[in-house]
């Protein structure tokens, strides 16, 4: 189904949980809500499900106004972060429960439950109780219960957050395909940018109860509309600097300068903000286009095939992410470089300044 939120606002206990949220979601897509804890992801999901009634605004499913329709009458399934299953029922009964409520025939229930169980690789556990299963398996049962319903809308609230690292990877690989085949519209909440990028689809970035941007995931990543969006969509944290444009040059703290280039020549002089991703800050001196800087190493973290270096560059605390293993000592001075073409430019209020031409990422 298509689902549309129009200017939804929600206040509870004097705190604004959602402020003028509008979202237009197409049928059958994989949509991600990305934002830190308490940014409003769960509230939006609950509003879409009908568990919360907004103070103002409308919700439209397939064009129909369902703002006042209670959750039992809506065509929705939900999966939570805590593996929620009926503890006293077997796995089979758990998955069958929504079908029993809908009074599906016995033969149909049998067939559909087994099909979905096979899809989620839990067909051998149908007569066990959830408490006897591992965390990953319990979550698969919850997912099966959501899938078997063939609801028009499936809502997932950080379903992988309580799982082991590797289990998370496994399930994350399977999820898009699982729901694609079912034809449901999926809305998935997560706090991890990497997860959003791996799942693809479309992403809405959330900040303090408002949506900052909504679009194709890697477009939101590459073309953030403001500094807040760029920050939300960054792990490790985005490197930020305050810069000044004077004449045809940009400068950071008057010490490091580089020419403004054709793309930015027409901008007025003044203060701006700069963001660039850690993997664009490379160790060593760069080529002639690059800006070369000197920094002091705060700490170097090696992660198998990559090195994260936390640096102090002219009183800016930045992170550099480089491929390969680089052993650096605390306090050591290193050369780093960054290609100005990788800079993302923002106005002092955070709004994005779009370049006329040129590479950006």
């Amino acid at each position, binding site marked *: 189904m298509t689902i549309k939120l129009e200017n939804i606002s929600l206040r509870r206990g004097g705190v604004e949980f959602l402020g003028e949220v509008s979202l237009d979601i197409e049928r059958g897509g994989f949509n991600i809500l990305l934002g*830190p*804890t308490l940014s409003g992801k769960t509230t939006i999901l609950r509003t879409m499900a009908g568990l919360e009634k907004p103070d103002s605004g409308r919700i439209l499913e397939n064009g129909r106004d369902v703002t006042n329709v209670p959750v039992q009458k809506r065509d929705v399934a939900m999966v939570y972060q805590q593996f929620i299953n009926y503890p006293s029922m077997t796995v089979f009964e758990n998955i069958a429960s929504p079908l029993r409520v809908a009074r599906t025939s016995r033969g149909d229930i049998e067939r559909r439950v087994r099909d979905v169980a096979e899809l989620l690789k839990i067909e051998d556990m149908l007569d066990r109780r959830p408490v006897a299963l*591992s*965390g990953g398996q319990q979550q698969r049962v919850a997912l099966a219960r959501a899938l078997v319903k063939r609801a028009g809308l499936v809502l997932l609230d950080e379903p992988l957050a309580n799982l*082991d*690292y*590797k*289990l998370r*990877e496994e399930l994350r690989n399977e999820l898009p395909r699982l729901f694609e085949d079912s034809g449901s519209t999926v809305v998935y909440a997560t*706090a*991890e*940018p*990497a997860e959003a*990028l*791996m799942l*693809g689809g479309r992403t809405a970035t959330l900040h303090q109860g408002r949506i900052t941007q909504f679009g194709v995931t*890697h477009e939101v*990543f*590459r073309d953030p509309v403001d500094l807040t969006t760029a920050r939300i969509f960054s*792990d*490790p*944290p985005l490197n930020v600097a305050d810069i000044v444009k004077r004449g045809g040059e940009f400068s950071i703290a008057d010490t490091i300068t580089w020419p403004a280039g054709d793309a930015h020549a027409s901008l007025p002089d003044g203060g701006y903000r700069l963001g660039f*991703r850690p*993997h664009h800050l490379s160790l060593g001196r760069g080529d002639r286009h690059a800006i070369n800087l000197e920094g002091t190493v*705060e*700490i170097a*973290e*090696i*992660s*198998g*095939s990559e090195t*994260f270096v*936390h640096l102090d560059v002219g009183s800016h605390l930045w992170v550099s*992410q480089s*491929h390969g*293993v680089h052993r650096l000592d*605390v306090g050591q001075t290193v050369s780093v470089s960054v290609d100005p073409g990788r800079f993302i430019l923002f106005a002092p209020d955070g709004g994005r300044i779009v370049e006329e031409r040129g590479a950006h*990422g």
Partner: protein
Amino acid sequence: MAEIRLDSIRHSYEDRPSSDADYALKHVDLTWNDGGAYALLGPSGCGKSTLLNIISGLLIPTEGDVLFDGRSVFHMAPGERNIAQVFQFPVVYDTMTVYRNLAFPLRNRGMDRGEIDRRVRETARMLGLEDSLDRRAAGLTADNKQKISLARGLVRSDVNVIMFDEPLTVIDPHLKWQLRAQLKKLHQRYSFTMIYVTHDQTEALTFADRIVVMHEGEVVQIGTSEDLFERPQHTFVGHFIGSPGMNLFPCEARDDGAWIDGRRIPLDSPPPVRPKGAVELGVRPEFIRFDNDGVAVEVRNVADIGRYRIVDALLGEHPFKIYCPEDMEIPSADPRVVFDPRHASIYVDGWRAEGDL
């Protein structure tokens, strides 16, 4: 500081264990050197928390011995072993102020008040808690409470080892970075022996000098992060470390290399002669690149993760993944790949094999 040795440790939670399956720890022989930063890495249920509790004395092992500096501590209570442990969620004494929380272990050891004051303030400064010393511990945020837990361990000068049991579980993602870097800095400055238990490879690999990988109650490999990444000794290590994990292809080992479905893959080291058992070729997605002189493959899907892409490909009937950095091109027609021969290895029944068997 002490050297800690685990000698033939086996542990079962059952009263009368009958088979290996009843043992949470099947056989562990480990030595932790003085002042090192170690990680115990493994999935849930691999035995890492059990091992931690055996070292700290909270658990008495069914078999085997624990030695600090050559002396058995088997019969010593946790309070006597001079260890510090930071748990998954912050453990603070709610009714006390931060100061008294930190002073607590010292008062129990009968230290004099002036000395206690000095050590408490020094440790608080180390962790940035000096402004909160007079506040009640109950009112602080989760990451500050974890710092208090940590400080309670550091405040004792005679600490042999500090152990962390998945300490960043309740911490917000953007604070995890800071806390991790702080822990590492602490270790570099003070050289405590630190053992960090986690299932998160990034935490383990960034924190530790040497990582102990565990699987189903056994130690599978010990090494630096490069060792584990470049030369995994077991397919589990290959799978568990690296995101995505190592690719495995069932293959035939011949004199001139590994053969997968009739295609020859050249190797650096000579493959084992007549290996007994299931033979597989393991190579990480990072060590595969597109090259016109390579074997033909089929590209099924490209996932864009921002600074890199993961390509789902097929070699014959075998699916595998390729790691492509931002700047690497993916050929649209007739894709061919080459496996880096230095990083492609043969595994027999899961274990890495080289040369003659």
